[in-house]
């Protein structure tokens, strides 16, 4: 199979996959599609698409500076592809930003509502302006194909130098300002990646990355279209990159040494390993390869070195923008497959546009040969049906559409309903019931209670799926269900009325039907009220009324019978307002009888308050 066709097909597939996910993101929001959370508000989309994307598109300003400012005319053949890469890179950044922003339709607000204190405001403006500049820089190339736009093209060509200069000025600003974004988080970032001169580091590394990205792009398209690579030219870029990388290394390490952070590199934490990996991949290995002329002049050496720099610098941007902060936030984050596919899809789409531009316009001095330009893939006349048909096996368009649609459908099939509708409740590790399978439940702490057989409840209600019936995560503000949610009669033999004594021959010695109306279910409602037998139970004129209801526990009685009433009263009567307030009875340190190890108290923290991470374990009392 043809190389171009295979690569394009894979790219179309990834794009199709991302398209389905992208639609889901806009319909159901960030929570449904990403693994972002309150502790990690910035994830892969910021780290890879924005921070790395902007840096990866630095090739445009670096190469234009070399050719137009430093007048190194030998690099002119790679200016157009470099500007095109940069332009598409910035468009990709903006499109990814639309996915990442919570309210993407408000992106124009940056033009109207100004906050010049914010580095992000400056980055936003620069990116917008620079994308425009890049568009103007590149548009003469496609305009070349249409003679009626010759005037516009000539006009743009006349302003080429000012545009290039403006582009360099804007690039310098926002490449460095991306570093300034992080300056406001000194307490969050890991010290190895936090530095007052982060903007300068970002700028220098962007220059190195720009050089290497141009190299990689040139190698990739050369490989794709089986084109002779400009090895001599690229090795000159590699040579320049060695100097820039060395400067970057010196600046970075000096800064770390001066601020006394050197020991952090070798302290064995995962951040230190990450840092060492980053330094080796992004700086030391490429310097090692490109310093040797033999490797620098070989295609394989160029491939390896440029990939190292690109991967290493992307790692650096991801580290700075979030990965290094994970410990500070006390949380973990790994991008969801939907985030990854969107990132991959945006990159794939950008590459597809790049290939399209290369094939259609005069980006290269010699236009490439690609399958659609070859006679064998032309649509052919189909004799039986008498129509022109593309050969379905040969026609690129059919293949690409099919690839796009198939993976689009696949992505839709893969998106789980749970992810779309809710992220679910907080996952809590289940622990077996205290005291083994059966539990002695004593709601009012009078040492009279019921024995609760956990295993029986689980097996009778449908095994594992039954947990949520009692341990609710599906009802807001409810930790667990009381027994009476299901056992509606459980309060019947409550402490106010001793069933056992009443029907016992040694006690009340009365039969069931003497209280409960025969024929009806034996519930509290079908029974006589207390005062129908016990004459004079309540003194005449008492406000207490005999009711047939579940007897409350002590806590419920105090809160329910006193506080609720006083609270109602307090709305109109200010004189006894304090009686309705928690602080009337409760003190900041609870009295002895409320402590968990007091007799009759359940052995667990007596308040369902939010504990800090890690404290749950310490507090859990093991029987």
């Amino acid at each position, binding site marked *: 199979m043809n190389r171009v066709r295979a690569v394009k097909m894979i790219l179309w597939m990834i794009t199709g996959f991302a398209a389905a996910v992208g639609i889901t993101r806009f319909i159901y*929001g960030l929570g*449904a599609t990403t693994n972002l959370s309150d502790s990690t508000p910035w994830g892969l989309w910021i780290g890879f698409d924005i921070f790395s994307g902007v840096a990866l598109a630095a090739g445009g300003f670096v190469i234009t500076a070399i050719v137009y400012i430093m007048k190194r005319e030998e690099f002119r053949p790679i200016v157009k592809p470099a500007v095109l890469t940069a332009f598409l890179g910035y468009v990709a950044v903006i499109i990814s930003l639309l996915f990442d922003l919570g309210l993407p339709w408000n992106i124009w607000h940056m033009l109207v509502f100004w906050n010049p204190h914010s580095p992000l405001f400056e980055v936003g403006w620069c990116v917008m302006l620079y994308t425009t500049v890049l568009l103007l820089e590149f548009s003469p190339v496609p305009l070349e194909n249409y003679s009626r736009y010759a005037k516009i093209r000539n006009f743009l060509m006349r302003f080429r130098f000012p545009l290039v200069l403006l582009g360099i000025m804007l690039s310098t600003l926002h490449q460095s300002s991306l570093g300034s974004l992080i300056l*406001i988080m000194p307490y969050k970032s890991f010290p190895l990646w936090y530095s007052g001169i982060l903007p300068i580091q970002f700028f220098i590394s962007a220059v190195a990355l720009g050089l290497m990205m141009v190299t990689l792009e040139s190698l990739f398209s050369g490989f794709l279209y089986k084109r002779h690579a400009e090895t001599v030219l690229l090795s000159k870029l590699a040579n320049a990159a060695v100097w820039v990388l060395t400067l970057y290394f010196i600046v970075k390490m000096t800064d770390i040494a001066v601020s006394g952070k050197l020991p952090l590199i070798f302290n064995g934490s995962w951040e230190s390993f990450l840092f060492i990996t980053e330094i080796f991949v992004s700086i030391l290995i490429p310097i090692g390869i490109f310093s040797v002329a033999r490797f620098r002049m070989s295609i394989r050496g160029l491939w390896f070195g440029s990939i190292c720099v690109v991967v290493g610098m992307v790692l650096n941007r991801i580290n700075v923008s979030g990965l290094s902060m994970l410990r500070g936030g006390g949380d973990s984050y790994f991008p969801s497959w939907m985030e990854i596919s969107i990132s991959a899809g945006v990159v794939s789409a950008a590459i597809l546009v790049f290939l399209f531009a290369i094939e259609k316009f005069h980006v290269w001095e010699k236009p490439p040969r690609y399958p659609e330009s070859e006679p064998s893939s032309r649509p052919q006349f189909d004799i039986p049906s008498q129509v022109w048909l593309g050969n379905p096996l040969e026609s690129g368009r059919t293949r690409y559409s099919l690839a796009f649609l198939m993976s689009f459908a696949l992505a839709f099939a893969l998106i789980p309903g749970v992810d779309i509708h809710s*992220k679910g409740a907080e996952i809590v590790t289940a622990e077996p019931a205290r005291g083994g399978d059966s539990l002695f439940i004593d709601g009012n702490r009078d040492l009279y209670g019921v024995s609760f057989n956990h295993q029986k409840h689980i097996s009778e209600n449908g095994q594992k799926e039954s947990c949520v019936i009692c341990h609710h995560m599906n009802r807001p503000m409810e930790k667990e269900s009381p027994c009476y949610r299901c056992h509606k009669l459980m309060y019947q033999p409550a402490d106010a009325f001793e069933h056992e004594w009443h029907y016992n021959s040694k006690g009340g010695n009365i039969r069931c039907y003497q209280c409960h109306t025969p024929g009806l279910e034996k519930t509290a409602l079908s029974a006589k009220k207390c005062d129908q037998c016990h004459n004079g139970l309540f003194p005449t004129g008492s406000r207490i009324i005999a009711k047939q209801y579940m007897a409350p526990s002590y806590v419920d009685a105090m809160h329910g019978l006193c506080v609720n009433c006083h609270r109602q009263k307090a709305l109109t009567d200010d004189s006894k307002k304090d009686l309705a*307030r928690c602080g009337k009875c409760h003190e900041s340190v609870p009295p002895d009888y409320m402590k968990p190890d007091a007799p009759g108290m359940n052995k667990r923290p007596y308040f369902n308050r939010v504990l800090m991470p890690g404290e749950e374990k310490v507090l859990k009392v093991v029987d």
Partner: protein
Amino acid sequence: MKAILTDVTKCIGCLECVSACKSANKLPMDIPRLWQKNDGLSAYNWTSILARPLEALSDHKFRYIRKQCRHCLEPACASACPVGALHQTPDGAVVYDSQKCIGCRYCMMACPYGIPRYDWESPVPYIRKCILCHGLIREGKQPACTEACPTQATIFGERTDLLTEAHNRIRNNPDKYINKVYGEHEIGGTSVLYISDIDLDFMAYKTHLGTKPLPQTTSTAMKSVPVTFVGIGAFMYGIHWIIKRRNDLKEQSKSNEE
């Protein structure tokens, strides 16, 4: 500048402030979600109570600490917001304008206390955090949480008055309190102050926050933006001019030789 002073030793953890906050700000029910941090705050919970064990664990004594937006005097979130959706009112409350927000979540990254929360579930999400009930303050009332507190553990007033009060309490009970008013100087001072008998440094990302206001960290870089912009342009044009002149001279000498 209005402020809130919370005396941790007086809090009984009754959650009256939390429920008052919910009803005053008309916040809906909240279901714990994966994307919420385990500190009780969320898009729908603007204040929460944290329990910290006191002294030895066997005592089962707790201190309850109310977490809420600190309303910094020089807020990092407001400085970070690219469209100025977060801003400070004259009363000192740091409030949010959902009409301006673009949803970049830079404020969440910038806050050293990790306060702003996001409405992740919604397709039209907004930033949510305590707004110091600035509507009530403007009417001359106090915020719902301090109004609801049954033990006067959290009180509202002028920042200077509350600072005096806090120092008085510490002076009168030097054995009870840690000799520090949390929020007096950290990152330039906050409007929500705490006095406590346990260490409250766990409330922020790092245990020891400096006294330097966070907006100052980026201001140097931001001030140098125009200089850099013009400077790099002039520098690049200078290089261009020199190289062009050198090339021209070379060509001239070449043509002269010929």
